[in-house]
């Protein structure tokens, strides 16, 4: 290759195999300075392997990396940084107990005298750097006290203060709210204007279309295509990733609405939500839509007994139930797939098998002793049915991909044979392929006369999957829309009905 391409990061003919797997096969990719380039593909497509090679975590088997046309040899993240190559991961590498300012200067705090830190200088310099990037955070605050959004901004600012030329963002919005995402996008745009080249990895199509200039699709370790964003549609991108069209994604077989399983009457939990009433029938998917702070998560948790209720009734199959603790809800046949699987849904350091059976050890034990053979066979069956990709049922859940983790979090309730499944954002941080599989699980549930409450911020998903949609705004139910009447405008109008400031915020 001729070294004549200033302001570009280019990889050519990268091969990488792990024992038994060709992880990357002849991968080419080019990112120019001042460009935001999306890297998409299902989990296992090779995105993280490619990033790890760029960052020097893995060594490539063959191929070259060129920076400004000059071949770069990168054997460690330190060397990558020396080439101006940085990555922002989902998990923050920042000291949570220290202040923003301190984090900026870890390892080389400005000194007034040997051993005496110049704190004023620390905060002033950090403050200037943050301001230059349009980040409005007090450098004296502890990282711990910042919101996830502010944390990631600070992390990025810290990285950029070095000589960054190319930045890799790996699912940066997974933990962020709408507002924070917006701020992050502004920051990324500013980096782009500063002539940084950016590789942006995300499962969220809408984000890619919003901020990226070009895109490369990986499938099974190969590049399926590289396009300008203006040249592709969302549907086309998804079919490139998975080899199937978008219409088929939400197309699940509807259930036969049967008798009423759950009736909620005037449920109130100040200040989160008030006077919520609805019914849920067998074989039904009830969508729950609303903006940030609409009270959806609180409502689900309250029905499940995880949050306090002030007044109101939960009627299950005609009987009024007093649910104060989750174990009572579970006994009554309710399951909750929580919003954050890492801190609420799964015991991360434990095995797939352990996690799947947590809710139902009673069924496979006698006198408090678990029948291990029964446990194993049932878990293996579940792993196969849900096509959970794991080397064994004894694998630690932490090491699974997001989609597979989520399937385990759902399988917990399938093992328990819950009648009502409350799902809070079940497809967040999950790749397209796993999304489709989760939709198929919902389909399976309603076919078996179970009922699902699906809380989702992604409009096409709520509209595509629900039989009815309950819309909430600021703790109130502002409307119930049937499948036939549902469209994005209507739902958004209902969702922002009570907003005092009148600014119709975007969905989460």
């Amino acid at each position, binding site marked *: 290759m001729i070294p004549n391409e200033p302001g570009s990061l280019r990889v050519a003919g990268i091969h990488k195999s792990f024992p038994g797997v060709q992880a990357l096969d002849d991968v080419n990719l080019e990112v120019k300075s001042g460009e935001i380039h999306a890297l998409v593909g299902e989990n296992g497509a090779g995105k993280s392997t490619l990033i790890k090679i760029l960052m020097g975590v893995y060594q490539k088997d063959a191929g070259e990396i060129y920076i400004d046309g000059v071949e770069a040899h990168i054997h460690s993240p330190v060397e990558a940084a020396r080439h101006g190559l940085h990555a922002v991961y989902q998990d923050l590498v920042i000291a949570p107990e220290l202040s923003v300012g301190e984090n900026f200067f870890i390892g080389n705090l400005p000194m007034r005298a040997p051993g005496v830190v110049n704190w004023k200088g620390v905060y002033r310099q950090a403050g200037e750097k943050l301001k230059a990037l349009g980040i409005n955070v007090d450098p004296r605050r502890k990282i711990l006290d910042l919101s996830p959004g502010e944390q990631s901004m600070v992390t990025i600012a810290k990285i950029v203060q070095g000589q960054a030329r190319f930045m890799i963002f790996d699912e940066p919005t997974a933990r962020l709210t709408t507002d924070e995402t917006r701020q992050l996008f502004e920051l990324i745009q500013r980096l782009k204007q500063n002539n940084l080249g950016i590789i942006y990895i995300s499962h969220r199509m809408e984000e890619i279309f919003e901020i990226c200039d070009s895109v490369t699709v990986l499938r099974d370790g190969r590049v399926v295509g590289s396009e300008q964003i203006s040249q592709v549609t969302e549907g086309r991108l998804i079919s490139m990733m998975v080899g199937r069209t978008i219409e088929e994604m939400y197309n699940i077989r509807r259930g036969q609405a049967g008798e009423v399983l759950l009736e909620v009457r005037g449920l109130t939990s100040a200040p989160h939500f008030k006077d919520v009433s609805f019914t849920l029938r067998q074989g039904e998917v009830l969508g729950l839509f609303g903006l940030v702070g609409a009270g959806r998560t609180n409502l689900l948790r309250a029905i*499940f007994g995880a949050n306090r209720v002030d007044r109101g009734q939960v009627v299950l199959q005609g009987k009024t139930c007093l649910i104060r603790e*989750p174990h009572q809800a579970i006994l009554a046949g309710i399951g909750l797939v929580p919003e954050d699987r890492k801190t609420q849904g799964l015991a*991360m350091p434990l095995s797939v098998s352990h996690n799947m059976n947590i809710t139902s050890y009673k069924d496979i034990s006698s006198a408090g002793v678990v029948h291990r053979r029964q446990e194993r066979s049932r878990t293996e069956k579940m792993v196969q049915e849900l096509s959970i990709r794991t080397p064994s049922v004894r*694998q630690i859940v932490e090491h699974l991909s997001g989609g597979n983790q989520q399937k385990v979090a759902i399988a917990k309730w399938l093992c328990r044979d819950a009648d009502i499944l409350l799902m809070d954002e079940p497809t967040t941080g999950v790749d397209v392929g796993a999304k489709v599989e989760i939709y198929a699980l919902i389909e399976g549930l309603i076919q078996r006369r179970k009922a699902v409450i699906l809380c989702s911020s992604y409009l096409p998903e709520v509209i595509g999957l629900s039989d009815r949609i309950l819309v909430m705004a600021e703790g109130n139910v502002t409307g119930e829309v049937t499948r036939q009447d549902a469209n994005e405008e209507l739902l958004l109008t209902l969702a922002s009905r009570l907003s005092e400031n009148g600014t119709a915020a975007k969905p989460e």
Partner: protein
Amino acid sequence: MESAKNMKSPMVTPPASAPVRGGERKRVLTLSTELVLLIINLVIIIAMSLITDSFLSVYNIGNLFKQASIIGIIAISSTMVIISGGIDLSVGAVTGLTAMIAAVLMSSDRMGMAILPALLITVVLGTLIGVYHGFIIYDFHIPPFIATLGSLYILRGVIKLISEAQTIARLPEAFTTFSQGEVLGIPNMVIVWLVLAVIAQFILSNGTFGRNIYVIGSSREVARLSGIKMRQNTYAIYIAAAFLCSIAGILLTSRLASAVPGGGGGYEMAAIAAAVVGGASLSGAKGSIVGTVLGTFLMALIANAGVHLKISPFLMEIITGALLTIAVVIDQLRNRKR
């Protein structure tokens, strides 16, 4: 949808990605913690047998096990608490108190009660301390560290009150000879230790209670949202811990043929150290009784080796501390590699 289902099939056999295989390697590593400890124990035993003449004798090995057994039983209790993400600093004090209660009840100088009712009362009173811990930790949301630290001081005071800071002796002979007895050449104390260890390991790996403990240790919120009854389980964990310490206290009194006001002092740290050397993690959800038994034995073995090699006891304290630190460092390094 049938068609969509068929389309799923290509995804069933994807190329396994690298992190997944890394995870599998991790499992093998975790399993071998116990094996590594076993090997270290054996290496020291073989080395000591070759270096010294006095080490390898039935008397010494028997004594070694006997020395380890009381801490060993307490370490089982510590391990269960640690796996649940908690900590119990009062185990030494509970052991000391129950040792004293048993002595006061049985001593002909004091109440002169018959052995069986005395032991029964001792165990009940000791176990009640666990109920108290469950109450204050679950119902008052007091962190286990603080709750049990408070108990440590309270119980030490109670010991001095009921013993009037005196050594209590003159115990029934049938009681004191128990600790000297043996079955088929195995000391009674060791039998009690190992039987309790086997039961505890069985509960942890096969019992629903044991499974719950690991889940609670990995995240209380996840445990609660999975329907684990937090109150019931928190109580059970601390009750089991106090029960085990009561047994240890009774054995201590039997072994010393008396109870001293400072009995069990510092045992909490020895027990926690044994659990940690055995692979338990203070952040919860990790550890096993097999590991703890081997860890307890290793600590006792090193102390014993020090005596036979005539190493200064002061130096031995330093070595023990260093060993604990190394064990934790190795554990950390392994975690990082994952």
